[in-house]
């Protein structure tokens, strides 16, 4: 079987502050903006921690103090660049063996900062990508379609 390289997911947004501030909010204050609907913590998300050094841990802390790991810091280069290793499997559980990367760069643009995000190495999800069906509800009979998709994709 040939190796399949998945195209990265790329996003960018223009924010109205300098790169150092944008970096600060993105990394050090991640819990302020991270959507609470995307949380592993059973008791709800209290905060998100990105340890400020290469090799640091990336995790969330629940309202009852439980820690849920998300990944690690690969590069911590304020104010220009942050690379995180995202180790969450498609069904949103922590998999220490999984390595996908989220690179975020902060570039001055006008009076603001262009924040570019790239989530890459998605091919490392491999066949597990098909398990994403777990996160898709099937309100309109989509379940069968997904099931056939998964079966064929896994074949």
């Amino acid at each position, binding site marked *: 079987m040939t190796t399949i390289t998945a195209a990265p997911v790329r996003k960018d947004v223009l924010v109205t502050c300098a790169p150092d501030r944008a970096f600060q*909010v993105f990394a050090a204050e991640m819990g302020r903006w991270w959507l609470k609907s995307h949380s592993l913590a059973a008791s709800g998300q209290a905060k998100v921690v990105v340890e400020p050094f290469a090799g640091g841990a990336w995790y969330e802390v629940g309202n009852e103090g439980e820690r849920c790991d998300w990944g690690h810091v690969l590069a911590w280069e304020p104010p220009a660049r942050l690379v995180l290793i995202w180790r969450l499997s498609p069904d949103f559980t922590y998999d220490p063996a999984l390595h996908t990367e989220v690179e975020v760069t902060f570039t001055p643009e006008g009076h603001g900062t262009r924040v570019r995000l790239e989530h890459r190495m998605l091919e490392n999800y491999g066949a597990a990508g098909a398990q994403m069906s777990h996160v898709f509800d099937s309100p309109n009979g989509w379940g069968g*379609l997904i099931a056939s998709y*998964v079966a064929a994709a896994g074949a």
Partner: protein
Amino acid sequence: MTDASHALSALADPTRRRVFERLAESPASVAEITRGLTVSQPAVSQHLKVLREAGLVTGTPKGASTVYRIDPAGLGPLRQWLDRFWDAQLEAFARVVDEDKP
């Protein structure tokens, strides 16, 4: 976490969904797919284009035609989901940054 109709919006069209379901059974050419449906070959080609762009199917040239199959890595839905996921997150991030403005 999210709903399928969003994540798989490319499959909202019933005919497109049938094309996709046909490929879930086995890889096929445009002509082979068209044979089992009541739509024209150009229409099927158009649906395949959308499915390809959504990362749900891939096409491999074989002789004069192209054989289509669903993305063997199963990454189409995953990519779509991540695409929306990061859209929402960056939107939230930008909102918080802007709130900090004096």
